[in-house]
């Protein structure tokens, strides 16, 4: 029988087998980037390409958030001129991208990672230090 597991159910029912942490990659300076090295614990659970694709997309999104371009300069100058009161009305570019990232991670979890018994935690909840991948016990093996 095909069972659909929601993420909530998964967290409650499944036991956590292990947690893998992807650390930050500082080779490009202080910009927020994560290491794309494929952790060995995930080898049995997910395709390497898929995983690296996810991490690369996240890296690109973070780079977009911190990008120094005309848009960010205009926003900065406008904010300064209005004594930063403009942020009462609108979000910063960075916050908008963070929302995009949250949505992306949610979507990836639902489509790809949850069916494989994995869960990606949004790095912002870990202070942008790590991407935490929670590996749940594989119940399918016990059936």
């Amino acid at each position, binding site marked *: 029988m095909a069972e659909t597991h929601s993420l909530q159910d998964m967290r409650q029912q499944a036991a956590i087998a292990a947690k893998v942490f992807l650390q930050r990659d500082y080779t490009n300076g202080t910009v927020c980037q994560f290491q794309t090295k494929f952790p060995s614990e995930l080898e049995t659970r997910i395709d390497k390409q898929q995983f690296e694709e996810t991490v690369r997309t996240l890296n690109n999104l973070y780079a977009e958030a911190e990008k120094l371009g005309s848009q960010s300069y205009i926003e900065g*100058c406008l*904010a300064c001129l209005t004594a930063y009161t403009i942020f009462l009305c609108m979000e910063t570019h960075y916050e908008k991208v963070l929302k995009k990232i949250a949505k992306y991670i949610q979507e990836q979890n639902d489509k790809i990672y949850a069916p494989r018994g994995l869960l990606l935690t949004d790095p912002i909840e870990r*202070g942008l230090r790590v991407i935490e991948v929670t590996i749940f016990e594989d119940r399918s093996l016990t059936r």
Partner: protein
Amino acid sequence: MQESVNCQYLALQLTPAIPVIGGVLFLFVLGTLLRTSFSDPGVLPRATPDEAADLERQIDVANGSTGYRPPPRTKEVVINGQTVKLKYCFTCKIFRPPRASHCSLCDNCVERFDHHCPWVGNCVGRRNYRFFYMFILSLSFLTIFIFAFVITHIILRSHQNGFLKALKESPVVVCFFSVWSIVGLSGFHTYLISSNQTTNEDIKGSWSSKRGKDNHNPYSHGNIFTNCCAALCGPLPPSLIDRRGFIQSDTPQLAPPTNGITMYGATQSQQSHMCDQDQCIQSTKFVLQAAATPLLQQQSSEPVILTASPENGGSLPGRTSLTLAGPCTSLPLGQPTPPTSTPSLSCHEATDMLPIHGHSHTHPLQEPLAHHHFLTPEEVPSPPGMLPCGSPMGHSHTMQASFFNPASQDSLHEDSVRGLVKLSSV
């Protein structure tokens, strides 16, 4: 006040626009100051226990673990052709990102740490550097403005009253020194911004060419304009900490997990620090009182966990030499009989709290510790039900009464009180 006199005079003599402009500048300075003080400088939240355990495992695998605390852990990273060392922070249990540093005053790792500014009362880091810069820049305009008009005032007055009299009445010397120092500071920070360095890096000479031929700043964007724009108009990352959440008091670790620990938010965690310290100090006092007939047994410099549970109120473990930082080490202690209802206390945290990071700031908790030890208990919030009282003797009496079994320990009280007074008068 001098300024108001000046203002009136100048407004009448020249133009009323002068105090208006001055007022506007002043409000701007105040605004940027408050913004700098109250914004999160870019605090990095402490690692969750899982993360910390994972890192420890990786490091142990790399090192081959030794028993005692291993040497400071570092990772090397090559950024733009420059080798940068990432240090491990023992307090926050993370590898610090490049340019981050642990501030011992705020007890946090701060991203792109510039310096801890005592005037502002906060660290200056990635998220509030632009506000700090605008503060000192506007303040330098304000001081130059004031200085210019002080000079004008003197000149105008000296036509009437004479030069020396006018000079005596005006705050020109103070103004001059303010202008010099503030403008100097602004100039320094302008230089730092244009070369994309932090005060920390500049002081250490991290990127100076004196260190090595190829030593250069890997973070600089190349030209001054880009560096300035990046520092002042670049994207402002949101705060990584939750400053309005409630602290969950967890295991004996002092650090609240991801909670706001800015200088002002720190009052919350600092208070919990202080409460532990105060309990510790209380327990010391009890011990000192009880040990009024000093049996000079032993004295060591090892911190000792002093626990006296309410239930047994029995004897403490054998070696009861208690050491807090600094002033307590010289106090000899005998074998005390602890009071029956003392809450259980652990004093090791007091010494644990002196972080030993390569940071030049003095730890402020040492001073209150030294200060508190010889203060009467009225300064100390715990234990409950204590009346603030002028004389230490009377106070310690009431304190003891609430804790000791008075019938059996009256004579001991007298002696201990005398002993306590003697010790505190040292």
